[in-house]
């Protein structure tokens, strides 16, 4: 059973356990929470965050940070929304949105690699720029009247499971396999863990950092598409503040901000936890204004526990090494 034990030791398993615990506790208070319908709905509302968290994980793994996802989401959602509203082709809208995400990712990557700006500052600046570009593009108005056939896309059910949820889950699993099983995928971890070592190994570090930003940008624009499809209109501040929620979700799922540690599955689970808290509060009949307090304290508690665990594990390992040397 070493394989099973290995799974138990994984950080993601603890996140998953926490998620199950959350559902159990809330289900104990209000059994409606455990109904399949509600679980399906929770998953559906967290799709947006899962997709963003997947992209963010790539960037975080390389030891960088992408704050601009909210702006990318808003801009691509607005562009896609206007194309659809004016009777454009769905494929055209989707491809344009993805291109926008990729271009913004490229700009971020360019700034971080070539101009050597710290990723936090670069993406923060891009965030405010994209927000303004969105306002200029939409003329400060909301994008409404999006055709129903696009909105229907998020409601297609296959065998009782939402098609979009299914696609996202399969996608997350594939990305996870890519990151953990393929040699190219391991590069991201390697860069974040030790950039100098990665260069010595011959990994094209700069190129992969740029890839990570492009992937994050594309994920953000995909999230923008989901946003348009699920919500059906795009306000000028669509996705405002979402970047911090996504980073919080990644951290909850065990992705380290220093880089090199974390998995996409964990980040996705973190995203589900954060959105489940919202619905859990409703089912527990707690006023919605408790939401931020609970998410914030949860984030702090989990992170501090993680840090303490890591510190003690380090200490133990050091002791073992010392003993081995002495004996």
């Amino acid at each position, binding site marked *: 059973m070493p394989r099973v034990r290995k799974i138990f030791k994984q950080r993601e398993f603890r996140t998953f356990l926490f998620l199950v615990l959350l559902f159990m506790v809330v289900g104990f208070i209000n059994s409606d929470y455990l109904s399949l319908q509600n679980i399906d709905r929770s998953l559906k509302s967290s799709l947006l965050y899962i997709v963003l968290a997947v992209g963010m994980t790539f960037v975080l793994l390389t030891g960088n*940070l992408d704050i601009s996802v909210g702006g990318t989401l808003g801009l691509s959602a607005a562009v896609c929304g206007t194309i659809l509203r004016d009777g454009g082709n769905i494929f055209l809208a989707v491809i344009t949105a993805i291109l926008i995400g990729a271009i913004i990712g490229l700009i971020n990557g360019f*700034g971080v690699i070539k*101009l*050597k*700006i*710290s990723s*936090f*500052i*670069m993406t*923060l*600046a*891009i*965030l*405010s*720029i994209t*927000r*303004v*570009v969105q*306002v*200029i593009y939409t003329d*400060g108005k909301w994008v409404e009247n999006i055709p129903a056939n696009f909105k229907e896309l998020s409601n297609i059910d296959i065998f009782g499971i939402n098609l979009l949820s299914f696609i996202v889950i399969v996608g997350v699993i594939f990305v996870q396999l890519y990151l953990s099983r393929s040699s190219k995928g391991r590069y991201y971890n390697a860069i974040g863990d030790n950039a100098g070592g990665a260069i010595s190994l011959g990994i094209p570090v700069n190129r992969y950092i740029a890839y990570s930003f492009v992937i994050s940008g594309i994920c953000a624009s995909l999230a923008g598409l989901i946003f348009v499809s699920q919500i059906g209109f795009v306000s*000028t501040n669509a996705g405002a*503040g979402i970047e*911090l929620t996504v*980073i*919080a979700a990644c*951290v909850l799922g065990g992705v*380290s*901000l*220093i880089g090199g540690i974390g998995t996409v599955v964990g980040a996705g689970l973190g995203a589900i936890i954060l959105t489940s808290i919202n619905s859990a509060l409703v089912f527990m009949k707690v*006023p919605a*204004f*408790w*939401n*931020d*307090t*609970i*998410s*914030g*304290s949860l*984030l*702090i508690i989990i*992170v*501090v526990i*993680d*840090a*303490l665990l890591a*510190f003690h594990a380090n200490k133990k390992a050091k002791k073992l090494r010392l003993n081995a040397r002495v004996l």
Partner: protein
Amino acid sequence: MLNKIPKWNLTLFVLIIAEMIVFGMINPRFWNVTILLNSFNDFIAISIIGFFVTLVVITGGIDISGVSIIGLTSVVTGLLSQVVGINIWGSILCAILIGGLCGLLNGVLIAYGRVQAMVITLGGMLLYSGIAIVLVGLSGVSTYEGISGFPEDFSSIANGEVMGIPHSVILFIIMFLIAYILLHRTKYGRYIYLTGINQNTADYSGINTKRIIASSYVLSGLSAGIAGVVLTSYLGSARADYGSEYLMPILTVVVLGGTLITGGKGGVVGTALASILLGFMQIGLQMAGVSTQYIGLATGVLLIVSVAFLGINPEFRLNMKRILTQKQHIGG
């Protein structure tokens, strides 16, 4: 004498002058001293927090929770004075102390819990704004209107003036002096720099780096508390969502001021100049008829350009120096 002033601060100063000339030519009202001095009210919260976030950034950390401490202290001030009925000055003191307490929580967890500053202050940001919303929700005050009806004395904190100089300018100078003396004229300030340059070395040379780091977050929290009170006084009502848009400007001011985001280098003077630059730009653009929504574009571009090209980037600076010294060799 001129050599002693860091070049970057000089550049910022020249930029401010250039900005004043340009905006003044677009709209001559910009040259009105009263308007300029009164415009301090619009960015004083940003600069007050910016001064002390500079200290945090120099130690190698980052504090983004200040933006929600503003809202929290604003709500606390309002609730204590208007709903509970404590004396307004007492409630201001309590509110600022609560800001310090929030900073203490951040600082202790970061310094003693060894967690990344970004994560803890992100959690703190959610937590403190959450507490502010909960307080408003529990007290049954209207979220949109906020808590108003403050006494005259309170609103004069931000809106009054002494000998023609608005209180906000005086407050700006006082907070600047406090931060300047702390950072540049005391042992504590040297310790902050040392901690940021190399925490291990600082530890070995007998500096209690954990206490230094934790205290810098407390200072940042206190300053956010003060900013919250000032903003409440300026706008006349207490609301939980004050300051929620200040994250970007605060970091812009700190980074534009020449402080390295990785720590160890920077100064309060740069932050002060950068906040004036940014504040005047906002006023100037508004006077020039640009909508407030578009100002983000200008600040974003300014941030990227300044960090990338204008010498904060050490590598760029090194290259520039090499080019310049070469020229001197040829010349001499």
